[in-house]
């Protein structure tokens, strides 16, 4: 039972960590239908900025803030220079965002040097609590809390404002939304910035958990985030949460009980989900207008 609890708690924490990476992508990929391969780059930038800011300020909160601001700025730049010309065209999106991903990752090395950076966390988040045989790592507990909070905030914003509606409508028929008097550009920029900031925040929270930030983490986890969004069903925030938790838990349990397959768990999970539910766990009706 203790073992089960241990695995479950850690699995959930991993899931939340994954959700933090994926939720920005859910917004951008799911709502705006933009295949943003540079998302991972934003994530990596968040990690580096976070580590750097923590080194300077020694304040965890400020480091997160710095990452969010960096994410917002990068999001603005990305949208403006990279995404704007290619809305609605997946093929061009793939090419241009992959190019930008290369630029982003390489720029990290220019700015922060080619070496990996050690990421530390403040002393009060170090270590773990022990409840009998159950070990709860403090930082992981924090991640669970932050993940849940973010989830609730995003859901509330989507539910109680028209933003979610407008974005979805804008993707389905951009012209019509404009003809209804909505400046869809502004909305898209805003959502893109928020999505990027979430990615950066994810990176900043992620680095202290694994202890390092490195330029290639972007590509590695970018793909991971795509997988989670797909398993959850494009555009569904709860879907992403559930998918992330599922991925986290299955990774944890498989690693323990059948570690030979640990490498393949996520892919197998995606495989199974897609075979039985071809549109992901949570289907959002008609993201595209076909």
């Amino acid at each position, binding site marked *: 039972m203790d*073992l089960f609890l*241990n*695995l479950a708690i*850690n*699995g959930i*924490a*991993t899931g939340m*960590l*994954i959700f933090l990476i994926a939720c920005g992508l859910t917004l951008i990929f799911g709502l705006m239908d933009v295949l943003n391969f540079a998302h991972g780059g934003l994530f990596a930038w968040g990690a580096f900025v976070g580590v750097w800011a923590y080194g300077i300020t020694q304040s965890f909160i400020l480091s997160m803030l710095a990452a969010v601001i960096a994410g917002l700025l990068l999001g603005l730049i990305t949208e403006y220079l990279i995404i704007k010309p290619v809305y609605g065209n997946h093929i061009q999106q793939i090419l241009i965002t992959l190019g930008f991903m290369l630029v982003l990752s390489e720029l990290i*090395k220019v700015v922060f040097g*080619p*070496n*990996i*950076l*050690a*990421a*530390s966390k403040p002393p009060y988040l*170090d*270590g*773990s609590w022990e409840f009998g045989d159950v*070990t709860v*790592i403090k*930082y*992981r507990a924090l991640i669970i809390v932050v993940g849940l909070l973010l989830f609730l905030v995003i859901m509330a914003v989507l539910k109680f404002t028209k933003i979610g509606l407008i974005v979805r409508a804008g993707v389905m028929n951009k012209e019509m939304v404009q003809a209804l008097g909505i400046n869809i550009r502004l909305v898209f920029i805003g959502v893109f910035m928020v999505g990027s900031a979430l990615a950066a925040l994810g990176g900043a929270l992620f680095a*202290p*958990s*694994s*202890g*390092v930030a*490195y330029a*290639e*983490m972007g590509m*590695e986890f970018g793909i991971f985030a795509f997988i989670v969004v797909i398993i959850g069903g494009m555009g569904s925030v709860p879907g992403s949460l559930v998918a992330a938790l599922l991925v*986290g838990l299955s*990774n*944890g*349990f498989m*690693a*323990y009980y059948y*570690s*030979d397959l*640990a*490498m393949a768990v996520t892919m197998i999970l995606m495989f199974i989900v897609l075979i039985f539910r071809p549109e992901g766990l949570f289907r959002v009706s008609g993201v595209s207008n076909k």
Partner: protein
Amino acid sequence: NESGGDEPSGDPQQEETEENNEEESEGNEEEKEPIKIGVLASLSGVLEAYGAQTQKGFELGLDYATNGTREFNGRPIEVIYEDTETNPEVATQKALKLLEDDQVDFLVGSSSSGDTLAVTGLAEEFETIMVVEPAVADSITGAEFNEYIFRTARNSSQDSAAAAAAIADEGVKIATLAPDYAFGHDGIAAFKPYAEELGAEIVHEEYAPQDSTDFTPHIQKIIESDPDYLYVVWAGANSPWNQLKDMDVQGKGIKISTGAPDIAALKTMNDLVGMEGFTVYYHTLPDNEVNDWLVEEHKARYDGEVPDLFTPGGMSAAISIVEALKQSDGSTDANELISVMEGMSFETPKGTMTFREEDHQALQPMYAIKLVEKDGYDYPVPELIRVMEPGETEPPIKNGQ
């Protein structure tokens, strides 16, 4: 070169130069034909940092071995660096360019085992000596061995032997953790016989995906196997150290042991202070003149930075090449070089290395160390416990298998 004076082998070199001048009189009229060395390294991508270390080390090594003249017997030594991008296809292409276009006399490289393996066949085809540095896969001097291949880098087996020597003892229970790919499996497979020979018992082997976000289930299993030591083989940025700390493995009476990595990675190991293990190199460990020169010169040239994990490897490769040339009287004919290089010993920052005759693997000292906290360092510093002599970590001969 100002530090050339401390270099003992300065004089004989001079003599040889003169001798050669007489023999090859026709080459004297014009510029002497240069000796060309092609260095393959990952200068971009994941292994970029390693590639840079090799490159710096090689530069320094050449200067050291030629007294800063970069000449041998009056022939200039020319080095061409090529980036393999850690991609076998690119490595092949660059190697071809070096071998055919630039007609290099020696190949050196590279940072990844895959790149290296893709190239070793070409070295054979072009009958060119290739000094492997710092790729570790056993198969390079094992199953995939060909006689043009010499390796100044240590191989996985040597790592493992060193690791075993550092911790294994009668009755010691050891659990292992390694990344779930060839490097990890090879490392553990090599480690086991050494450890068992020393009387230790392997109680658990755990493999985790290289890019795992969550090591806790793996650590959980290790804790349950209740070992005295946890031996970790790891490489790459994403690492389990943080979570080993979070799960308080050391607090549960399990001592962690691993090979100390380069300084950037050491910075992520702050939680492992007190760990006993081994290392290939840390600049304070060896005690010899070559190393003193290396540390000093490295600091002077690179902003006060000290040489890192693979810097002496690069240097050793350069030294071994110059040494081979000396022994072959400047001949770059591969077959002649092979015959002089087999069994050749040479002085490196790590002390004396010897190319074993059978598989051309350089036998070399390794270091048993302990990580300690030290003022003025933002990482745990490897402190020497003892030097393991080359014979102690001698790997089995596996070529042709």
